[in-house]
């Protein structure tokens, strides 16, 4: 399908600058390739039509069992993990999985563009021409009718339509009551513990520089960033891409180059098919993770604002309010307008 006419037009000079920016990212990815060392390499299992998942993890033993079962059910054929110095058994657990290839590093997560340099190198080597899913361990991708149609159906349809990327919004899930007061056992469905979300407080705008749709809002903005909305967490993502060696993510999976991969939304009134990344950040382990983050300073810009945010998270806050929506599944999110079926009926 022809690319719809988009109001974001910046001219040739901008395109040229972005082109060099992308090349710099690719060079950086190549330069940092020795930072990761293979632990278990099962990439010879990857067939030409395999759907691959890429993730950087650190101490995610609690989330990984459900993470893997969720994405296996969705049709991911092979997982490529970079373990960033876990000490809770994450590496051993992953190494034992038959559809996982594992790399290891102890270098700085922040200096590797929050893991994107490492994953970029794996994508460069193994992702070319595959549909590649790039997610964090606390992100579970769903899309309309995902239980009846696996990722092969979705990507096959996207191929037919001539789309090379798929957009999904990060939706923060939280429990009712203080974050630390709920129980979660590894392997359980986290949407049972984190059963609530904010349904309608998301702001969209066009990102001037990269031309993506920039979404902010949600519970984290409401509770932690209300006085600094410009700094609130970004929620738009492009996690699923039919990869090419020439592609590079910019900042997490919020932005990607070339910018035509941001063509996942519609200007004319139609809506494209899109998904939601259920964000399981607020499982009870969040307090411990935030405490560690305050020590390590490996996440986003270590400004006073973010320090304050992590401090608040260690103090067992309650994010629930009486207008919170209970999570019921994909059809509910479509009805609320958080994701859309588009023409994929």
């Amino acid at each position, binding site marked *: *399908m*022809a690319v719809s006419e988009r*109001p974001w037009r910046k001219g040739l000079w901008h395109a040229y600058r972005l082109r060099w920016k992308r090349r710099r990212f690719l060079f950086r990815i190549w330069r940092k390739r020795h930072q990761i060392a293979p632990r278990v390499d099962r990439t010879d299992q990857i067939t030409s039509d395999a759907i691959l998942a890429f993730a950087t993890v650190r101490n995610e033993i609690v989330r990984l069992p459900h993470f893997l079962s969720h994405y296996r059910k969705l049709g991911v054929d092979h997982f490529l993990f970079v373990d960033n110095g876990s000490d809770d058994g994450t590496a051993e657990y992953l190494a034992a999985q038959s559809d996982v290839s594992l790399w290891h590093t102890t270098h700085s997560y922040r200096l590797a563009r929050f893991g994107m340099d490492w994953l970029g190198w794996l994508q460069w080597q193994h992702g070319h021409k595959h549909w590649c899913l790039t997610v964090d361990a606390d992100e579970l991708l769903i899309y309309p*009718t995902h239980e*009846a*149609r*696996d990722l*092969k*159906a979705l990507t*096959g*349809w996207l191929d*037919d*339509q001539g789309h090379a990327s798929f*957009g*999904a*919004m990060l939706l923060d899930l939280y429990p009712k009551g203080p974050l630390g007061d709920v129980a979660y056992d590894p392997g359980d469905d986290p949407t049972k513990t984190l059963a609530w979300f*904010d*349904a*309608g*407080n*998301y*702001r*969209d*705008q*066009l990102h001037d520089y990269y031309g993506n*749709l920039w979404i902010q809002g*949600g*519970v984290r*903005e*409401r509770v932690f960033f*209300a*006085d*600094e*909305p*410009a700094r609130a967490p970004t929620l*738009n993502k492009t996690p699923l891409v039919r990869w090419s060696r020439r592609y590079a993510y910019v900042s997490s999976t919020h932005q990607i180059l070339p910018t035509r991969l941001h063509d*996942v*939304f*519609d*200007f*004319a*009134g*139609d*809506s*494209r*098919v*899109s998904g939601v990344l259920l964000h399981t950040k607020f499982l009870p382990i969040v307090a411990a993770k935030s405490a560690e983050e305050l020590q390590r300073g490996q996440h986003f810009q270590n400004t006073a604002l973010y320090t304050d945010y992590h401090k608040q998270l260690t103090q067992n806050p309650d994010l629930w*309010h*009486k*207008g*919170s*929506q209970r999570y019921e599944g994909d059809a509910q999110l479509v009805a609320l*307008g*958080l*994701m*859309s*079926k*588009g*023409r994929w*009926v």
Partner: protein
Amino acid sequence: MTLGVIMLVHTGFDRAEQMVRHWSDAGCPVVVHVDSNVPAASYNTFSAALADLADVRFCARHRCEWGTWGMVAASQEAATLLLEEFPDAQHVYLASGSCLPLRPVAELRAYLDAHPDTDFIESATTADVPWTVGGLDRERFTLRFPFAWKKHRRLFDQFVKLQQLIGYRRTIPEGIVPHMGSQWWCLTRQTLDAILQDPKRGVYDRYFRQVWIPDESYYQTLTRLHARQVESRSLTLAKFDYQGKPHIFFNDHLELLQRSKSFVARKIWHNADLLYQTFPLPHDAARAAEEPNSGAVDRVFSHAVDRRTRGRPGLYMQSRFPSVDRQNGIAAAPYAVLQGLDDVFPDFQAWLTKQTGAQVHGHLFAKDRAHFADESEIYRGGLSDNARLRDYNGKMFLANLIWNGRDDHHCFQFGPADTQKVRWTLAKDTNASIWVVSGAWSIPLFASGRSASDVRAEAARLQRIEDKFLKVLRAPDAHARIKIMTLADFIEAPMDVLQAIIDDIAGHRGNALKEVPKMPDLTGLPDFLQDLKNQGMHPFLTGDITIGNTRPANGEPRRKPYVISAE
């Protein structure tokens, strides 16, 4: 008598094999055409897998690129072979590897036996039916298409444009009237034979070779020459999107397909195991005589096509971000913006809630915080009352508020003391109806008891801001429904305006007002305004307030006719 099947296959050989076996087991001879693009190895494996079936043939292979003659050549090849090899076949069914019989083949055969002379082929003249894919319908038959649409889209388009520009038209061979329709047909032996043996077939074939998407018009047109009885519909349930690409059926379409009672459906998702397990349904005597009924499927899929053009108005999300300039409605539902009324009537908000049952907010855009109808800190959908958050993107705040509560009618108070960034959004939104009583800000100033010299600066500021807002409302691209009246006009006949507002919210003629909101005593207001003038600050937006029209209204009906000054 039997039913012969032509199956066109280019991919998904495991499912194709399953389908061939299925037709064959039900006693139907099958001729398979495999796209010549398929590598020899795959072809050999596929044909070897079917070697055990006696009534299955493989015909010579053609290259089948979508939209080109190859598709017709393939079906001609297969049909010729089928008619030769299987003289018993009375009907011939054209199917593909991703066609799935929904009802037992026996039911289809019984149905065809009951209609021995009928050709089932969707066939409509282009003049009467506006099926357009890429804007070409009639022109499919009158232009030439030497460039592949898939590989050389630009050349294809430019060549079409060029021909349109110079007014090129091919002549259509004498005797035929172009018809179009679904490419999946079921023809009688007699008709098919007549098409293939037609002495003028050479002429027709040469012509159709250069027609765009000939598999949707070749048989559809020629059948009209030879058929005894044409039933213009396809026995294969197939839906197409607005681009002419087939919709694919997945596991979650199971119920829909069951309800359709169609004999065959396509296109079935390769991995839709549930569908392949469920269909064809077992024989059911009650259903056997029923006609196919694809109404429900039609509705679901055409709804999707509608959504393509209309979308969900007022929704902004990751895959829908309509630009404001292209659409008129910004919010999802109508809402009312009321400026100045709460200055005139101190308990206006409570009164309006009582009268209409609408969600009547206070000053949503107040400088301190958003005053929601229930004065809560977090409103529906998790919308915060935080002013910074709201003002960071006022348009999205408003769009969210209305979207989250789109089943209710929303009204909110607005005024020159509020943050003004949202005024263009309000003015442009066709869903907004904006009521302004200009100069009403003077009443709270007057009621504060402060002297004119004390409030002079404040009055001037409010007037300046309100004037700017009025200018926006009077701009040519202000598409909201806008009613502006001066304070003087308003207090002449407030009941008429209030009634109009309530009618507007109710969406029809609302109940006649029984209860009047309390108006404060305005005695002294003219003097106050005169004092402001004496200070050099002319409150021109209030209109001409005189002692006469500020007399407290004691239910005394006024005779003076009242006209709302509509802009």
